């Protein structure tokens, strides 16, 4: 099986985001990691190939030069090779990202499955996988928590609402957006990290992919820190009195009960 896993290089969720100017952030001071949801796709791909005893997992990313670090992490987690499509923006439109991924994957080989995460934790766009599938004329299901491959078909489950699950069937090749629940991603071991340094990575510039130019249809006007709460009102004393006061506040002052 030939499997491509799209990974994005994103700021760690615990990282402090220092905003610079109106619409950008300081990416030199915060720690970057593989987008956490992509790890579920990667783990699933690696397990599929391990189970079948043959096949290849290729990690693909569209990102800045520094995104090489996430390709290396993906290879430490079991990907055999990497492809880095270089751009100079963290906020590339999902349409352009999808087209770049398509071009890079098609230049490289014929996928049986393309994994992505359910979304990326930086721009929270939740759509690149759909655009990639549409561009490649493939089926797509996102937020997948269970996958079985059977006879050239993928049977997947996704959560819909309060714990209910939808079961869907699609033909391979297809695009699968992974999320927590699909598997438990492994931790990289030291020897794997060392081996990953020697695995091959193809680097291309996004400009060399011959993509049609595309007007920016969504413009980032402003980026600001999410207002934080402060000065919580602390309720103290006897439990019954405290709780009664809380209910009064929620009913009368806040009108949320």
């Amino acid at each position: 099986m030939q499997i491509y896993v799209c990974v994005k290089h994103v700021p760690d969720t615990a990282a402090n985001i220092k905003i610079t100017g109106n619409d950008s952030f300081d990416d030199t001071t915060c720690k970057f990691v593989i987008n956490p949801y992509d790890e579920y796709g990667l783990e699933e791909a690696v397990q599929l190939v391990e189970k079948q005893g043959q096949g290849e997992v290729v990690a693909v990313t569209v990102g800045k030069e520094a995104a090489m670090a996430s390709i290396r992490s993906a290879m430490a987690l079991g990907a055999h090779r990497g492809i880095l499509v270089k751009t100079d923006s963290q906020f590339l439109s999902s349409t352009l990202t999808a087209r770049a991924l398509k071009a890079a994957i098609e230049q490289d080989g014929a996928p049986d499955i393309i994994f992505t995460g359910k979304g990326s934790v930086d721009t929270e766009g939740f759509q690149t996988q759909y655009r990639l599938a549409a561009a490649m004329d493939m089926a797509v299901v996102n937020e997948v928590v269970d996958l079985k491959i059977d006879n050239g078909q993928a049977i997947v489950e996704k959560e819909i609402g309060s714990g209910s699950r939808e079961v869907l069937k699609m033909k391979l090749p297809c695009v699968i957006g992974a999320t927590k629940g699909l598997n438990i991603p492994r931790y990289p071991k030291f020897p794997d990290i060392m081996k990953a340094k020697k695995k091959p990575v193809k680097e291309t510039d996004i400009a060399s992919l011959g993509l049609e130019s595309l007007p920016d249809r969504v413009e980032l006007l402003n980026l600001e820190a999410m207002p934080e709460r402060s000065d919580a009102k602390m309720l103290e004393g006897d439990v019954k009195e405290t709780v009664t006061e809380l209910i009064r506040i929620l009913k009368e002052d806040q009108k949320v009960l």
Partner: protein
Amino acid sequence: MAKVGVLIEIENGEVKETEFSVLTAACGDGGNEVFAIVTPENTDAAASVLAEYGANKIVHVVSQGGDIKVSPDLEARVLAEAVKKFELDMLLGLASAKGRDLFARMAAFMDVPLVSDCTGIDLDTKTVRKSHFSGKTVATLKLESELFLCTIRPNAIEARKTPVQTQTVIFEALAADPGLTKIIDVKESAGGNVDLTEASIIITGGRPIDSSENYKMLDECAAQLGESTAVGASRAAVDAGFAPHSMQVGQTGKTVSPKLYIGCGLSGSVQHFAGMKTSKVIVAINTDKDAPIFAKCDYGIIADMFDVVPMLTQVLKEQGE
């Protein structure tokens, strides 16, 4: 004046309550023509409530090309056809499990921009606000496109009634099923609980809940807090096996925005807050006066949740009687 479509989700024969805020967003400051798009059968029941929230037209979409209930791609194509037919300038919907999938499918199929999970929207200036970086920042985005799609975070916008005269039209869509994906089964959850992402009140238990049985204490309290109350869990509690992943709130779980969030035994991690920061009122119950959550909540109670929660249940019950 813009022509604004709203995709209406109907559940158990009724319009989902969270749709009212999407209709409110579509009305904007007035003057827009609002189209409520409904796909299931029973639109009669929906008409009066849709009119109350400003729907000038109710478009009942009927698919001639196959069963949209088993083909999400067909459903996306059918809706795209309706968007074209009524020359809508934008289509809004809920960032629910269904909305998230359907809007992304439509955006990809139609090749139009989509902004997911908006927390604010201004139709006049075509700008929207949404979270970036797991709730640490807010981005303001401008849509430079004739037609665009937006999903809105449930409960993020306050619903407001704007009654109008409404008219129902039937639209027969001809789109064919591309035959890419097929829904072959739906496994209903045993609980039949309120969906976390759309609940208006959430009470969450963190790691110190210590067992799955102890969630009963929260269930009992939820029952007293009102109909639209759901019980959530932190990742630490999910990873310890106390609760299923479908109950997890946070960056790798669900993003929620209820009007009231009661966190019991939560330390207040960045990743948990990524999923519930935009809640209207946050109450924290924690034994440790230095717990980080007390620095980012609205009301704090320094006490043991095993004392506070049963008391909360009891007092609510007494007051309700």
